[in-house]
């Protein structure tokens, strides 16, 4: 990195008395807003609602699994519960979580723009998301879906007699919401950066959001049409995937995973973006290896497209195709490894504080490391034969999705909460909650690795008794985890009313959102368009940087 600061950062603007929250209070002004910050809040409220719903379904699943006999729910009820958990958490929480909330709020501010390129499209994205959500939920309340979130044919297309088509239409719409958000981000990053905000000065959160958007735009349409074909097959009895009608059920898996594997990166990449911001701020250090991390974000997005077949090693896929997918999957592990090493190295000789967001960062690095590494046995053709479709898989992706993504989301939410609301949260409670989440999470999901190794298949309503001890541990952990999620809800709500007012930059952080605008920001983000003169994360800017 050759860019050396040439001028001190622009002086903070004086806080305008009217900010994006206080500019108007009517419900109408919220529902018709085109302000990216307000839309971010709309998304935040919506996905929190979906998170609660998905969490409720998870609670049912974990309660059921306390006993091996399957006596709390009927088998059908259990299947609907885990399907609801998967669909709601993936399509209505994880995929929109960071991009549509933190991304929507921060991306324009971070690059020095007044708004996203297409504010009305952004609002449309929220409405489509909500309509999709309402349709999917109504399917669940009308009777539910029992296909699992993967909708494997021919079960989903022929045999299931539940509300598959309605759910699929809901997901189809939610997919378009995701596409519109991604489209907006790509165009905004390309065309609306402030003067001096070169690609080499972009905060890495923006790089991550950009990489995520590429996946959203390129992969989501494929799952949209695939799910549509399932609905058409169900409705008209047309054969696309049903072997009784001449179709090939494995083709569905190809098309489905063409989206749903990259979708994993839609979920985790923005989390990685958040960690970049947190680890620098609370180590008070420039990020270690900016270019390497930026490249790793994009590499993950691109390579992530070529590995979908690793979900199909035992599904009758050709072993030669399996080998190609396996070697590419091992290759995709490398960009993730690079990032973890760089984050750790960023802490080296830093000045590390233990504020709540940093606690979540520690948690993220550790749990993402475990989650990522346990992906290796699933990438290995041989080892996957035993592990696929067992609790090992369940544990692995929850380490990525909850241990990684949700922790990053919570860390980011705490970090930017003062910016978004203009209020501080109670630090002591927040630290306690972070600890509870970490403990509860590990107690929930670590036993599931062992269960998978012992051969417990996933999506089992009743199970052999020898697995009970580990299931009880897991359910106990889940209850602790639930407490860990409830505490922040309580103190965040308290903070909205009674939290102490936040200064513009409570953390002493770098970045336009902290240095060039108030907390909360004004409607068009900046009084004047900021001019960027220094690289990202220019902490300790008066000291000469070194290259190890």
């Amino acid at each position, binding site marked *: 990195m050759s860019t050396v600061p040439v001028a001190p950062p622009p002086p903070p603007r004086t806080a305008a008395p009217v900010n994006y929250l206080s500019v108007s209070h009517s419900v109408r002004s919220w529902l018709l807003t085109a302000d990216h910050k307000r839309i971010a809040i709309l998304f935040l409220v919506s996905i929190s609602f979906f998170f609660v719903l998905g969490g409720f379904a998870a609670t049912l699943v974990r309660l059921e699994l306390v006993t091996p006999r399957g006596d709390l729910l009927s088998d059908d009820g259990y299947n609907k519960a885990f399907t609801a958990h998967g669909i709601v958490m993936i399509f209505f929480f994880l995929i929109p979580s960071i991009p549509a909330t933190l991304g929507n709020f921060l991306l324009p501010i971070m690059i020095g*723009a*007044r*708004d*996203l*390129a*297409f*504010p009305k499209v952004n609002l449309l994205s929220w409405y489509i998301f909500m309509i999709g959500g309402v349709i999917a939920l109504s399917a669940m309340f009308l009777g539910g879906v029992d296909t699992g979130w993967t909708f494997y044919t021919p079960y989903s297309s022929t045999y299931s007699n539940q509300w598959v088509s309605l759910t699929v239409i809901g997901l189809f719409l939610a997919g378009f919401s995701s*596409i519109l958000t991604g*489209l*907006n981000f*790509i*165009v*905004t990053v*390309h*065309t*609306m950066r402030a003067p001096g905000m070169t690609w080499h000065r972009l905060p890495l959160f923006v790089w991550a959001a950009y990489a995520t958007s590429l996946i959203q*735009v*390129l*992969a*989501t*349409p*494929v*799952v*949209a*049409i*695939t799910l549509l*074909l399932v609905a*058409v097959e169900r409705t*008209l*009895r*047309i*054969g*696309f995937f049903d072997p009784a*009608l*001449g*179709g*090939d059920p494995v*083709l569905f898996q*190809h*098309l489905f995973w*063409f989206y749903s594997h990259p979708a994993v990166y839609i979920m985790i990449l923005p989390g990685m973006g958040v960690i970049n911001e947190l680890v620098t701020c609370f180590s008070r250090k420039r990020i270690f290896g900016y270019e390497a991390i930026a490249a790793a974000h994009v590499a993950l997005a691109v390579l992530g497209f070529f590995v979908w077949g690793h979900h199909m090693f035992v599904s009758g896929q050709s072993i030669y195709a399996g080998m190609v997918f396996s070697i590419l999957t091992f290759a995709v592990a490398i960009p993730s490894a690079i990032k973890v090493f760089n984050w750790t190295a960023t802490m080296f000789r830093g000045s590390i504080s233990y504020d709540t967001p940093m606690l979540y960062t520690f948690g993220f690095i550790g749990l993402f490391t475990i989650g990522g590494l346990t992906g290796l046995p699933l990438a290995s053709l041989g080892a996957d034969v035993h592990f696929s479709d067992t609790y090992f898989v369940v544990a692995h992706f929850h380490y990525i999705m909850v241990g990684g993504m949700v922790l990053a989301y919570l860390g980011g939410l705490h970090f930017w909460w003062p910016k978004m609301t203009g209020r501080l949260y109670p630090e002591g409670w927040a630290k306690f909650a972070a600890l509870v989440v970490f403990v509860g999470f590990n107690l929930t999901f670590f036993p599931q690795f062992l269960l998978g190794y012992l051969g417990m298949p996933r999506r089992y309503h009743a199970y052999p008794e020898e697995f009970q001890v580990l299931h009880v541990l897991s359910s106990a952990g889940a209850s602790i985890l639930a407490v860990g999620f409830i505490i922040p809800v309580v103190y965040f709500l308290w903070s909205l009313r009674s939290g102490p007012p936040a200064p513009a930059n409570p953390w002493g952080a770098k970045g336009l959102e902290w240095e060039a605008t108030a907390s909360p920001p004004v409607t*068009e983000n900046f009084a004047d*368009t900021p001019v960027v003169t220094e690289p990202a994360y220019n902490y300790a800017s008066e000291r000469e940087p070194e290259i190890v």
Partner: protein
Amino acid sequence: MSDADTLSHSLPAASAVEEEPSHPAYRHQFDDMAQQFEASHLGMWVFLITEIMFFGGLFGGYTIYRSLYHEAFADTSQYMNIVLGAFNTSVLIASSLTMALAVHAAQTGLQKPLVRFLLATMALGSVFLVIKYFEYSEKFHHHHFPGPNFHYEGPWARQAEILFSFYFVMTGMHALHMVVGIGLLSYLVWKASKRVFDATYYTPVEMIGLYWHFVDIVWIFLFPLLYLIGPHHMGGHS
């Protein structure tokens, strides 16, 4: 090189920055009209890429089944009406031409030709849909619509049904895009008749033009892939 000329040509656009933000179409989040146009242009292309992938899933499935059931598909495609298909291809190509000419008229600020070319495009698009309707009804009449009533004489009934499934879903999706396109064009006609577009601002014409050409391209692939599988024999089944 003419490319380089064009690009360097575009730079003086900055001189217009001072006055343009007062243009009625200007949106507050942009610095100037040039940036606004660039964003719309890129946004449209990104949208078209999602459309490519949307149809891509169908083309992917089609490719697999065509390779699995090659002979059956070749046999079934005898039932596709190649004359109507070829005629419709020409109609769509003509509509692309009129669309390109409409954009040209907008770029050069010619108001009346703009409206006329837009209307011509709409008319050609409607002709396409009408012919498509006749093709569909012929297929319904012969029980070639997949589903419980499907009937196919010949050894490959089940495989034929798959081809007809792809035929109906792919051309149906395409026709849906045409209908949306005609709706967008009527919006353009309404705006153009109010003389909203001129040489400095014609973004919607250009964007909808891109969309229309994209729909044309989809058909350019659908025609050979659905109608021209395997060598046709004069006076085939239909």
